[in-house]
């Protein structure tokens, strides 16, 4: 490959960690020769399509499948009666008062959201399956629908699940410190209701499942576009009532997940069941419309926020009431997400007291669950918005106001009022760096001058902290550890088996970098295997910015075990103590200078003719890493915007992000994660919104109506970082997958509200589409200085 030195990457170095290495994944991906689930083609494979409810709430009185079955090329049509043996869609969360409704893979007598599957059609090809799905006749008797959370909690509401006689799914309270005193003694109390709208994760690859059953071997193989192959394997075995030892799950190339594939869906039970029942492989690929309707959604909370401020300007207490829309059923982690919001509500501030109450509400909509950030963007939005509103009300600079309540570097590990222990941070330093890069003072000066000329420039600041490396098992529903097995093969090449399941994060490269450093080899000689439950020891998967900090640490510690083994053998061969052996690049050297090559050592380990007593032949080691704590990355984002008061259009002029994710293994990959995260966060702030109407129809359920960010919406972002290593793991890494999304959303809303503050505008709900911004301007207490922007246009 050409590499003329101008490229942003380097190919060779002595120390791989910290280098901008080109990704090992990419040659196959840029050539289109790799395989995502929908690319798999097995002999005799059938195609299937799900028939989904067009009603948000209805009784099913009958389903007629004769016409569909009669169509040439149709192999089978099944409804819930046929699929009764398949277990429920699982929810992994347990809470004392949690209502858990039955969640069948195909609706039985009732549907509760638009898109709920009611039947499945299997045919020789996709087009025939789609034709046949149109021929399935379902008699629905529509029932009253509830989509509004406040109505759902009122009197006179339809119940999503009759048996509960309420739409309340759970109540979660987190209270600490003397909150009443904090508010009683407060110099000022700032109150604001703010919404966090429903979003679509919208991975570019929709979900997909392929299943094949070999009855002789009793082997069910399921390829699924998933972030959690091992957990899925266990759940499939439970759903189908078959031994887990007969189930193999493979996550092939996965085209993005953002949390939406950190789940177990009904289709992951149905498709394997079909393959077993029909004795032929079956493939299902979700359409984009289905992806909007029936893949989990993110966010959707109503937040009533009250902030108490002490006389010295520091924060004294925070009271938050959250209504969290659960949708109609629980998916795997649905009730957990708002609890993560509660944990992170203290942000990066020293709150003496906090009082949070969250009510989970059932509505006739698709389930919410983990979407990039999963509870933390909601928390950060609340805290960073209310801090900004407070600063404005107090007439203080928003950056200055924030720093008053930062814990200082020496106070770490810092225990928050919500009970978390933040590992390490220098909030002040990230803020200082971001201010410098953004030329904050200049921006403020320009803003002041602009207001005089009727130009509305805004500056948004967001100082976030997030929770990553999820997490200690005690605090997670299904284990928070991760596995790693490192093996030097007889030819000297290295295989790493990791329980992490990357789907775009590039761990085939970053894990190879860290192992190559430890073993003194080239990253190209490390092959990272993931996503196949038959090849890889049990693992948890990739989500919650955990892969490197937990999975990478497992790989690192397995490598340490292996190095001990290598030193034992080398000591034996070189006639020295193991402790006197140094592992170098391509060789192992005794204290006196005598050495053997890496190849000689490996050969000895496998031929096993000359090994020390008690030495297990081969060169392999496994480590299951249980983290002692989460990690807490942080940073400051600063945005400069201009709002056109005549059109309500927001122009992002500058975006600066200073993020601290601890030590960095591959800066190129870290930057990519930040860029992508920022754009997703800005998507929420500016354009994205899933809207259900009163009938429970999803009216923004296509890429035409749901505005995903596109390339020309943005300027070039300016990135920098501070590096505060985490003490939680030996590599000092924290995690970076969600940081951008968490930091960016409030930053832009703060900027826009800041721009319009002279008009007396305090808060505008997301997304900040021109129409909404324009309405806020039109209804503002102070009229905008009109004419200037048109003058600008004429100039």
């Amino acid at each position, binding site marked *: *490959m*050409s*590499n003329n030195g101008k*490229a*942003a*990457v380097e190919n060779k170095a002595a120390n791989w960690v910290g280098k901008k290495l*080109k*990704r090992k*994944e*990419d*040659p196959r*991906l*840029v*050539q*289109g*020769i*790799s*395989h*995502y689930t*929908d*690319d798999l083609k097995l002999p005799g494979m059938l195609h299937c399509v799900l028939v989904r409810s067009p009603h948000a709430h209805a009784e099913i009185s009958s389903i007629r499948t004769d016409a569909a079955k009669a169509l040439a090329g149709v192999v089978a049509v099944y409804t819930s009666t046929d699929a009764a043996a398949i277990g429920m869609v699982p929810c992994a969360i347990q809470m004392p008062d949690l209502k858990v409704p039955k969640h069948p893979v195909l609706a039985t007598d009732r549907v509760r959201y638009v898109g709920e599957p009611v039947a499945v059609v299997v045919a020789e*090809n*996709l*087009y025939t399956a789609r034709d046949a799905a149109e021929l399935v006749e379902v008699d629905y008797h529509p029932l009253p629908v509830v989509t509004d959370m406040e109505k759902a909690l009122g009197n006179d509401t339809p119940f999503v699940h009759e048996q509960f006689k309420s739409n309340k799914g759970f109540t979660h309270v987190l209270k600490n410190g003397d909150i009443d005193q904090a508010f009683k003694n407060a110099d000022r109390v700032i109150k604001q209701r703010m919404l966090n709208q429903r979003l679509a994760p919208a*991975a*570019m*690859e929709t979900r997909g499942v392929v299943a094949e059953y070999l009855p002789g071997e009793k082997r069910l193989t399921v390829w699924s576009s998933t972030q959690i192959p091992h957990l899925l394997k266990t759940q499939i075995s439970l759903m189908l009532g078959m031994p887990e030892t007969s189930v193999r799950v493979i996550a092939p*190339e*996965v*085209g*993005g997940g*953002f949390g939406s594939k950190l789940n177990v869906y009904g289709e992951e039970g149905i498709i394997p069941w079909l393959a077993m029942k029909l004795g032929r492989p079956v493939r299902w*690929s979700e*359409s*984009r419309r289905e992806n909007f309707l029936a893949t989990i959604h993110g966010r959707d909370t109503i937040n009533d926020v009250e902030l108490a401020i002490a006389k010295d300007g520091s924060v004294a207490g925070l009271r938050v009431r959250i209504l969290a829309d659960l949708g109609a059923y629980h998916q795997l982690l649905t009730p957990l997400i708002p609890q993560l919001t509660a944990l992170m509500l203290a942000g990066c501030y020293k709150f003496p007291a906090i009082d949070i109450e969250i009510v989970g509400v059932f509505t006739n909509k698709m389930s919410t669950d983990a979407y990039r950030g999963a509870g933390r963007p909601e928390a950060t939005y609340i805290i960073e918005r209310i801090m900004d509103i407070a600063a404005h009300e107090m007439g203080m600079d928003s950056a200055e106001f924030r720093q008053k309540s930062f814990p200082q570097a020496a106070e770490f590990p810092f225990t928050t009022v919500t009970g978390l222990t933040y590992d390490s941070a220098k909030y002040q330093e990230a803020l200082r760096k971001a201010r410098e890069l953004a030329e904050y003072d200049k921006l403020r000066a320009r803003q002041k001058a602009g207001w005089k000329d009727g130009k509305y420039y805004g500056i948004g600041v967001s100082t976030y902290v997030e929770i990553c490396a999820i997490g200690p098992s005690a605090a997670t529903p299904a284990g928070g550890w991760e596995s790693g097995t490192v093996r030097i093969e007889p030819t000297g090449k290295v295989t790493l088996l990791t329980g992490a399941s990357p*789907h*775009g*994060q*590039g761990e085939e490269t970053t894990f190879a970098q860290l192992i190559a450093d430890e073993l003194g080899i080239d990253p190209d000689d490390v092959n990272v295997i993931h996503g196949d439950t038959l090849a890889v020891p049990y693992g948890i998967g990739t989500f919650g910015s955990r892969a490197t900090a937990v999975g990478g640490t497992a790989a690192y510690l397995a490598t340490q075990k292996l190095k001990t083994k290598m030193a034992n053998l080398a000591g034996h061969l070189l006639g020295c103590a193991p402790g006197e052996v140094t592992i170098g690049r391509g060789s192992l050297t005794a204290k006196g200078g005598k050495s053997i090559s890496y190849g000689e050592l490996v050969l000895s380990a496998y031929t096993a003719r000359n090994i020390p007593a008690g030495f297990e032949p081969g060169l392999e080691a496994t480590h299951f890493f249980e983290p002692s704590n989460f990690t807490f990355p942080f940073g400051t984002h600063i945005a400069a915007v201009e709002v056109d008061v005549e059109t309500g259009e927001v122009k992002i002029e500058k975006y600066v992000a200073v993020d601290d994710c601890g030590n960095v293994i591959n800066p*190129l990959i870290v*930057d*990519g994660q*930040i*860029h*992508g*995260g*920022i*754009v*997703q966060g800005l998507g929420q702030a500016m354009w994205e919104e899933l809207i259900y109407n009163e009938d429970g129809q999803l009216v923004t359920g*296509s*890429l*035409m109506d749901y505005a*995903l960010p*596109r*390339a*020309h919406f*943005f300027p*070039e*972002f300016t990135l920098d970082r501070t590096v505060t290593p985490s003490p939680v793991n030996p590599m000092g890494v924290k995690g970076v997958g969600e940081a*951008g999304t968490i930091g960016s959303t409030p930053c832009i809303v703060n900027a826009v509200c800041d721009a319009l503050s002279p008009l007396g505008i305090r808060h505008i709900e997301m997304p900040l589409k021109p129409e909404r911004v324009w309405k806020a301007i039109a209804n503002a207490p102070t009229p905008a200085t009109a004419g200037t922007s048109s003058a600008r246009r004429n100039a």
Partner: protein
Amino acid sequence: MKTKSIIINVNGTDRRAEVEPRLLLVHFLREVVGLTGTHVGCETSLCGACTVLLDGRAVKSCTVLAVQANGRKVTTVEGLAQGEQLHAIQNGFWEEHGLQCGFCTPGMIMCSHDLLCRNSNPSDTEIREAINGNICRCTGYQHIINAVRNASRKMNEAVTADVAATR
């Protein structure tokens, strides 16, 4: 359903097939020819994952019928590399980390190909506008912009070198 006999030249090879008139070009490429590098992201021409070249110009193959491509030339992402040698655009995406999950990448590369054939030295703004019909949910686009710039530079250098060689 009645079928129609078509011949489409895909990456230099004539592919004959009997297809239903409603068969989409993207499904022809993926299911009939077996080239799965062209991805289906939305089937509504909004995401661009299925972008291929039809007679040298970028089209979204989910909104072209296979029969409409009859007798024409299609280039897919699989048709860009020369053996082991990646195309400059593929190389640009690799060097600049212009992809993460890789799902939108073939479409992005084909769309960039179209741009660079029309405009060998596009500005960042021109690149952003050219790829605005292709959605990437991972990268935030900035590294894709760098990738196209990288490819543009390399392709121009190659042209300059060729000209120099013929003098």
